[in-house]
C-alpha cells in the first residue's frame, strides 16, 4: 500500500513517545484493582476485569492525546509541506496517519493488557481465554474509535490550542454523559430519572451506551457475563446482587425480560464501528476539500 511508509512512520512516532508508555503504565496501575466485589462477580476472570477498569478510564484520553496532533502538529511546524508533497492522495495521508497512530496506541495497550494478564495469572491463576481475547479485540476497537476522533479533531482545527480544546470538550461530554442523558430525558419526558430505580426506557438505556467507552463497557460486560450495562463490571454485578441497591443503569434491573432488541450487548460493536467510520469519513470529507495548508 502506498501509505504504509507513512503508517510505519506514524506508529514509530507513537511508540517512541513517552505518551504511549505512560498510557500503558497508567492502564496497568489503575486497572489492577483486586476487590471482593470483582472477585464475587467473575472469579478468576477478574483479571479480564482489570483490563476493563484501566482501559475505560485511560484509553480514551490517552489515545486522543496521542492522535489529536497528528495533522495539526504538522501544520504548525510546517512539516505538512513534505507530507503533502509525497505521492499520496489526501485520503491516503489520512489513512496512513490514522492506521499508524492506531498501531502505536494498539501496541501500547496490548502490552498493558498482557502485563495485567501476567499479574492476574500470578495472583489469581488461569482465567477464561475467550473473555480475555474478546476484551482485547474490544479494546483495540475502542482504541481505533478514539484515534479516529483524534484524527478528526486534528483535521478540523487549524490551531493546536483549538484542537486541545476540542479534545477537552469531548472528554468533558463523555465524563458527564450519564448526567447529560438523564437531564435531557427528564426535560423531554417529564419523568425524573432515579439511578437507583431507573425507568424501563429503551431510548434512555440506548443513549447511555452510545459513547465509545459506554459501548466498550457494554461489550466487555457481555464477555464477562455480568449483565447488560455501560457501567464497570463489578458495579453491574453489585447492582444485580439480591438485596443491594446502587446507582447504576443495568438493563436486567430495569426491564422484565432482557429489554428491547436494540439493547443487545453485541450491538455495541456497531456503535464502536460507527465511532471509527463516521469521524474518519468526516475527516476525509474535510481534508480532501479545499486547501490543505
Amino acid at each position, binding site marked *: 500500500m502506498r501509505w504504509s511508509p507513512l503508517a510505519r512512520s506514524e506508529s514509530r512516532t507513537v511508540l517512541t513517545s513517552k505518551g504511549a508508555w505512560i498510557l500503558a503504565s497508567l492502564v496497568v496501575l489503575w486497572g489492577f484493582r483486586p476487590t471482593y466485589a470483582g472477585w464475587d462477580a467473575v472469579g478468576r476472570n477478574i483479571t479480564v476485569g482489570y483490563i476493563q477498569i484501566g482501559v475505560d478510564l485511560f484509553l480514551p484520553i490517552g489515545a486522543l492525546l496521542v492522535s489529536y496532533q497528528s495533522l495539526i502538529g504538522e501544520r504548525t511546524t510546517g512539516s505538512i509541506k513534505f507530507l503533502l508533497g509525497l*505521492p499520496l492522495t489526501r485520503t491516503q495521508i489520512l489513512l496512513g496517519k490514522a492506521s499508524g497512530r492506531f498501531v502505536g496506541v494498539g501496541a501500547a495497550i496490548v502490552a498493558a493488557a498482557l502485563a495485567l494478564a501476567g499479574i492476574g495469572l500470578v495472583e489469581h491463576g488461569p482465567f477464561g481465554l475467550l473473555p480475555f481475547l474478546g476484551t482485547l479485540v474490544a479494546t483495540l476497537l475502542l482504541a481505533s474509535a478514539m484515534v479516529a476522533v483524534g484524527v478528526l479533531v486534528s483535521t478540523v482545527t487549524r490551531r493546536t490550542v483549538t484542537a486541545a480544546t476540542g479534545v477537552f470538550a469531548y472528554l468533558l461530554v463523555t465524563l458527564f454523559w450519564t448526567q447529560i442523558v438523564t437531564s435531557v430525558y427528564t426535560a423531554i419526558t417529564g419523568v425524573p430519572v432515579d439511578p437507583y430505580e431507573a425507568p424501563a426506557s429503551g431510548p434512555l438505556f440506548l443513549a447511555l451506551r452510545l459513547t465509545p467507552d459506554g459501548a466498550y463497557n457494554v461489550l466487555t460486560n457481555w464477555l464477562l457475563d455480568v449483565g447488560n450495562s455501560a457501567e464497570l463490571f463489578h458495579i453491574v454485578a453489585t447492582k444485580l446482587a439480591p438485596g443491594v441497591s446502587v446507582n447504576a443503569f443495568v438493563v436486567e434491573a430495569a426491564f422484565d425480560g432482557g429489554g428491547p432488541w436494540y439493547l443487545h450487548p453485541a450491538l455495541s460493536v456497531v456503535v464502536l464501528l460507527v465511532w471509527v467510520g463516521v469521524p474518519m469519513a468526516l475527516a476525509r470529507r474535510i481534508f480532501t476539500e479545499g486547501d490543505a495548508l
Partner: protein
Amino acid sequence: MSSSAPAIEADAVTKEYGDVRAVDSLDLVVERGETYGFLGPNGAGKSTTIGLLLDYLRPTSGTVRVLGKDPRRDVVEVHDRVGVLPDRFGLYEDRSARQHVSFVAEAKRVDDAPESLLERVGLGDAVDDDAGDFSSGMEQRLALAMALVGDPELLILDEPFSGLDPHGVRRVRDIVHEETQRGATVFFSSHVLGQVELVCDRIGVLHEGRLVAEGTLDELRDRTASPDDATVEDVFVELTDARVDDGGERR
C-alpha cells in the same frame, strides 16, 4: 500526450482568500528542460502559486497542469515525478537526516541511497544526526536532498537559497545545473536575485498576484529599457516598482 506536454501550465489561475486575491489570472508555461526563475516581492503570490501547482491549495478559478497532469486528480503520479523544496517548512526534529530521506524514498518506491543524496547536498558528515540539531542552512540542504529523491522530472524549489552560506548557495546552483543537464526542469522562486541571473534560462516576475513580465534577462532588460549591463535586481526593481493596470501592462 503528457510526455511532450510542458512541465508547468497555468491557465487563467486565480486564488482568492476572502477579499484578497493572492494570484490573479495567472497564465504560465514552463517548458521541459528549462530553468525558470519565479521572482516577486514578498507577498507577490509566489508560494501560493507553488501551492497551487502541488495541490496544497486549490485554485478559485482556472486550471493547472503539471507534466501534463492535473495535480488534483493525478496527485500520486504528479508527486511521484516532482521533487519539492518548500518554503517555511519544518522538519521532524527527532529524526535523522537519513530517516528523512529514506521516508521520501519509501513513499516514492525508489531505492536511492540516503547517504549519497546527503553527500551531494553537503550533509555527508551529518547523515545520522537528528534534524532538531540542524542549523537553518543544514535544514535547507536536507530539504533539497529530499527533493532530489527519485531523480524527479520537475524540481520545484521555493526559496532554495534561504538560510544558506555562500558555499551552500554555490552547491545549490551546481545541483540545479546538474539536474538540468540530466534533463530535469527546474522551477524556483527566489529573492536572491544575483543567483537567478546565474542559473535561470527564463524569468517570470510576479507582482501583486499577476505575472507582470516574463522572458530571458535580455528580453526583460529591453522591456524595461534598462541598460545592457543592468542586473536582475535592477530589472526586478524597475518592474515591481511600477503600477500595474488592468491589462497587466506597466504604466
